[in-house]
């Protein structure tokens, strides 16, 4: 009964024609969104003669793994082993994600749940930081990095990612909806503020962790080192493969193979965490 009831409710104020044209529109634009990804996936499995066929095709006819083999051998020619580039990307992303989730949560908790002098100004500055892109600060950042001796190390990419403002903002908004009573009760039970953070609040904001993780993934997984990394053995997968793709037209298949590898990880991650991310985003609004 419940189901039929809710189905009927959905139909309120919805005309058939309206529905039809809306969803047709959605389907067309959806196809446009998906097309490049579908093309990349197919091209990754195309043999060279199929990539350069006229008229071009979207879907692969004789799938092959030759592009992946070529990729491995191309990267094998470089004096740094292929796995090193993968390690670099995974290390930068992993460290950045863990550090950011910990630091941003620790900072978000007091901002969300305590009243203390300076709270308002700190949060205002974080919100202001959402309003400009990181490119603005690239030059002074380089000077600071070189002063700290972090140029050409992983840390030049990892450490600034710890203090990514969007993550703190979303975490703080999400933490605000944790009932004060829960925190109050633990305090009466004698838990210290640090303990409340670690054992009461953190387990309750798991959806927000997932959101921060995916945002940091977006930031770090495809990074080329932001101009800070130039030692061959420290370069990321994205950086190294770009050098290959620049090699010319015959590398198109290899490029598609790289694209497939690069995109599959964050997309898979999102598939499994979608509902939790949406839950976090529900609290993302800006109140004044």
């Amino acid at each position, binding site marked *: 009964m419940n189901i039929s009831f809710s189905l009927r409710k959905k139909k309120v104020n919805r005309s058939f024609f309206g529905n039809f044209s809306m969803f047709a529109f959605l389907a067309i634009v*959806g196809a446009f969104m998906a097309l490049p*990804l579908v093309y990349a996936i197919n091209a990754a499995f195309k043999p060279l003669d199929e990539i*350069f066929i006229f008229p071009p095709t979207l879907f692969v006819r004789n799938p092959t793994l030759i592009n992946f083999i070529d990729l491995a051998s191309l990267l094998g020619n470089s004096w740094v082993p292929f796995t090193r580039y993968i390690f670099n990307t995974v290390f930068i992303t992993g460290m950045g994600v863990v550090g950011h989730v910990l630091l941003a949560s620790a900072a978000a908790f007091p901002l969300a749940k305590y009243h203390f002098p300076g709270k308002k100004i700190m949060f205002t500055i974080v919100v202001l*930081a959402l309003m400009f892109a990181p490119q603005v600060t690239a030059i*002074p950042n380089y000077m600071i990095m070189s002063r700290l001796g972090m140029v050409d190390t992983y840390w030049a990419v990892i450490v600034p990612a710890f203090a990514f403002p969007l993550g703190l903002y979303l975490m703080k908004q999400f933490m605000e909806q944790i009932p004060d009573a829960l925190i109050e009760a633990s305090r009466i039970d004698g838990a210290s503020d640090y303990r409340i953070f670690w054992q009461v609040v953190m387990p309750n904001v798991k959806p927000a962790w997932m959101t921060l993780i995916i945002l940091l993934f977006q930031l770090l997984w495809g990074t080329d080192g932001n101009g800070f990394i130039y030692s061959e053995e420290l370069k990321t997968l994205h950086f190294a493969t770009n050098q290959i793709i620049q090699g010319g037209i015959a590398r198109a298949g290899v490029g598609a193979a790289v694209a497939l590898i690069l*995109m599959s*990880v964050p997309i898979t991650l999102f598939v499994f965490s979608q509902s939790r991310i949406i839950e976090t985003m529900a609290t993302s609004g800006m109140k004044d």
Partner: protein
Amino acid sequence: MSEVAIKDITPGKAEMGKTRRPQSWWSLKKEAMKANKHAYVMLAPYMLLFGLFTVLPVVMSVLISFTYFNMLEFPRFIGWQNYSRLFLEDDIFLIAVKNTLLFAAITGPLSYVACFVFAWIINDLRPKLRAFMTLVFYAPSISGNIYFIWQMIFSGDRYGIANGFLIRWGILLEPIQWLKTEIYILAIIILVQLWLSLGTGFLAFIAGLQTVDKTLYEAGAVDGIKNRWQELWYITLPSMKPQLMFGAVIQLTTSFAVADVSIYLAGFPSVNYAAETIVTHLMDFGTIRFEMGFASAIATVLFTLMVGTNLIVQRMLRKVGG
């Protein structure tokens, strides 16, 4: 008791004072700070890094913009010279500003509306389909900077997908050098930028739509709301104001920072600077010519432009729906 209170308001005693008495503003603050020591401890690591890599660079950028600085000699104060040179002598900067504003004026509002419209249509779907369509629209923005795929699509020979299909359908006779022709470059960058733009803002809207109180729609139907458009205007949009404001910040900020796509697709520098943006101009002076003072002036202009526009838009959105 109050007698005692009036006599001493030394901060030292005020700190321990559990007794209610008039205190100076500062001693009150101090007391609050002491009581919340743990809050500062928890904030410290993040705020230290945030200050170091976000706040300090903005301040430095503003200061350096008033100097001549080449990374070798000590910066020399030159007043407004960088700015006057930027606006009066640097023709390419004006092209960059024009392109940036064009990108921002098109991709900003368009991507914002697109984020909302698609989130809104998707919200009407059944949950499984909704999750799938969310993935389809969101996937480009998280797929790890793979916009070089577009380079293959718009490749200038007949094997590029765009040329290939257009020739096969008889619309074109000759392949077009898409990324080498000024008039197409801007359009293609805008297209790719839009493709990439359904990101965090889009998710915020999807989430916001799901939190709108369902009973409001029923009440609205009773009160005479006739179609989906009225429903959207009178119920959905006002209920989502906080998410709408958040989404605006995210979309606007990215729309001003177009650079990576431009560099990848159009090259750096692009043909006749057709795809030069403020950010690529900044990179030119900052990372190639090492004119740090001048580059910082560019960065400061960009910063002002981004934050200023955001604050104005926030003010406007606050008024929507009363």
